[in-house]
């Protein structure tokens, strides 16, 4: 049994146009010690996936509907009462977000926010929690942690804020950490520092990590297994090395080829995927990539392929070309 099993997760939101399905049938597992990446461009549903696992959308006004299962240690946390879910959040599964400045409450000190998290899940005194908070800040590489613990988020630099965010997420030693674009807003040199830290968490504490990103570089450099999402569906998953070298799905192929690396030939035009990502509400019955695909056949427009094993073991692809 995997630590986290997502089975056929489908999330729909209430909009003026009726219910719109943001992700449709997403399934994957995360084991202890494992670092899995979800790759995709904006609007592909990668963030919705992570926030659905955490159930971060307010459910009181029925604006969101979930289908499928999210099994954490075998327990379906997608359908337990909303109130009980709070016990798992932060304690078992924690999350870090892209924009640390917006994600930290501006009116509380960094320390207060960590102490709050600690005291929700653990029975400790304020003083103990404070000491623990300082320790956590030190661990995440914040110099002068005993002083910074009383700083407000706006007083810290971008990199420091992201570290504080990580300290907050680590506070209860969760078994799974979801990192939603943790380095996108940061400069490359700071990016490298933060990624190094996340990789260490995975190695040292055996924390299962779901890395959500649009940056193929970050995935290629740090992850073993990855999933590619397009318009709310996983279109390909597998081992990073194989997938980057021999991508199968036309979208994955295009994505990897269109990103320039320092080895790209300057005199040739870059490979491009035609057209634009369609709107979610415009998705038809067929394969969601059919409008932009070079290999699309009649069938692709009417029937949606399912995610099937192809190539090496553990490699799945959602395309008729490989049936």
């Amino acid at each position, binding site marked *: 049994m995997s630590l986290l099993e997502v089975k056929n997760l489908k999330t729909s939101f209430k*909009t*003026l*146009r*009726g*219910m*719109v*399905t943001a992700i449709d049938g997403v399934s994957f597992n995360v084991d202890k010690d494992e670092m899995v990446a979800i790759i995709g461009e904006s609007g592909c549903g990668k963030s919705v996936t992570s926030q659905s696992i955490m159930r971060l959308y307010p459910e009181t006004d029925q604006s969101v509907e979930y289908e499928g299962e999210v099994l954490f240690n075998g327990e379906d946390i997608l359908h337990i009462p909303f109130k009980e879910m709070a016990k798992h959040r932060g304690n078992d599964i924690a999350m870090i977000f892209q924009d640390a400045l917006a994600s930290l409450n501006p009116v509380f000190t960094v320390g207060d926010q960590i102490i709050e998290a600690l005291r929700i899940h653990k029975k400790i005194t304020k003083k103990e929690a404070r000491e623990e908070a300082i320790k956590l800040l030190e661990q995440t590489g914040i110099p002068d942690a005993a002083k910074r613990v009383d700083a407000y988020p706006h007083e810290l630099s971008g990199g420091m804020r992201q570290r504080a965010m990580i300290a907050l997420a680590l506070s209860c030693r969760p078994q799974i950490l979801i990192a939603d674009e943790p380095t996108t807003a940061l400069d490359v040199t700071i990016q490298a520092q933060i990624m190094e830290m996340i990789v260490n968490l995975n190695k040292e504490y055996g924390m299962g990590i779901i890395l959500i990103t649009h940056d193929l570089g970050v995935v290629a450099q740090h992850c073993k297994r990855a999933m590619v999402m397009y318009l709310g569906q996983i279109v390909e998953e597998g081992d990073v090395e194989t997938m980057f070298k021999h991508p199968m799905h036309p979208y994955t192929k295009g994505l990897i080829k269109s990103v320039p690396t320092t080895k790209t030939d300057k005199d040739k035009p870059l490979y491009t995927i035609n057209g634009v990502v369609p709107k*979610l*509400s*415009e*998705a*038809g*019955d067929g394969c969601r990539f059919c409008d932009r695909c070079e290999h699309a056949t009649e069938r692709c427009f009417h029937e949606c392929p399912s995610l099937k094993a192809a190539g090496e073991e553990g490699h799945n692809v959602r395309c008729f070309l490989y049936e």
Partner: protein
Amino acid sequence: MKNKITKEHSHKYLVFKKLCSNKLLLIFGILTIVIVIAGILAPVVSPYSPYDMQTSLRLKAPSAAHWFGTDTYGRDVLTRILYGIRMSLVVGILTAVISTVIGIILGLLAGYFNFLDTIIMRISEAMSTIPVFLMAITLMTILGISTKNVIISMSIVYIPLVVTVTRGVALQVREQTYIEAIRSIGAKWPRILFRHMMPNVLSPVIVQATYIFASSMLVEAALSFLSCGIPLPAPSLGNILSEARTVIFSSWWLVTFPGICLIIVILGINILGDALRDLMDPLSN
């Protein structure tokens, strides 16, 4: 897929449809439209003259001949209400338009030029330290009581509000890249201000203008109620209520009908303002 069903409808249509789902608001909205149309057509639809006094008909309760009864001078209340609505609407619209036009220009200038910002905003802040109603009544005392002066005083009173709103939006718009882009092409400030910035500050200001419309009708009614507004004997909703003050507890119709009409019209305009606000909200989804 169920996503596709309403694809062809525009976002604005969907917002409008959602607004209409609040039945209570819809009813008030329709009532307002009826009352406003009746007010506009007052000279055509009203059976009597608003000024004809008939002492024999003093303070008659509602009847078939006089649906809303008669007042202390024997005038038909319904007729006076219809003319009164007309008057209140005209005063409200003119106030909203004048204060908005002047306010937009000043607000844009303040939002674009830093040196004007300090001057305009200080003055505007000083003016808003005096509460709207007090300011209006003070101006009325000084200017003298006349319909024209009601409009002038209320316009002055609301200008700082428009300036503040406009300037706030203008400051945001100024930072948008398309303003920098048009500047980098070589455009001069009048073009930037009035061709590029103005259309982009307009929506929140128009919403504000409808609120000013409603609120100025309230203020006008209160001014007239205290005999500092529209001079008698011209009918305005405030005047009718003011004249009824002495007999208020014996002749209920003199307060009830004009009062309800006033509330419904103002409510209707406020609903309009809310609807505009929701419709003009930047396209989400």
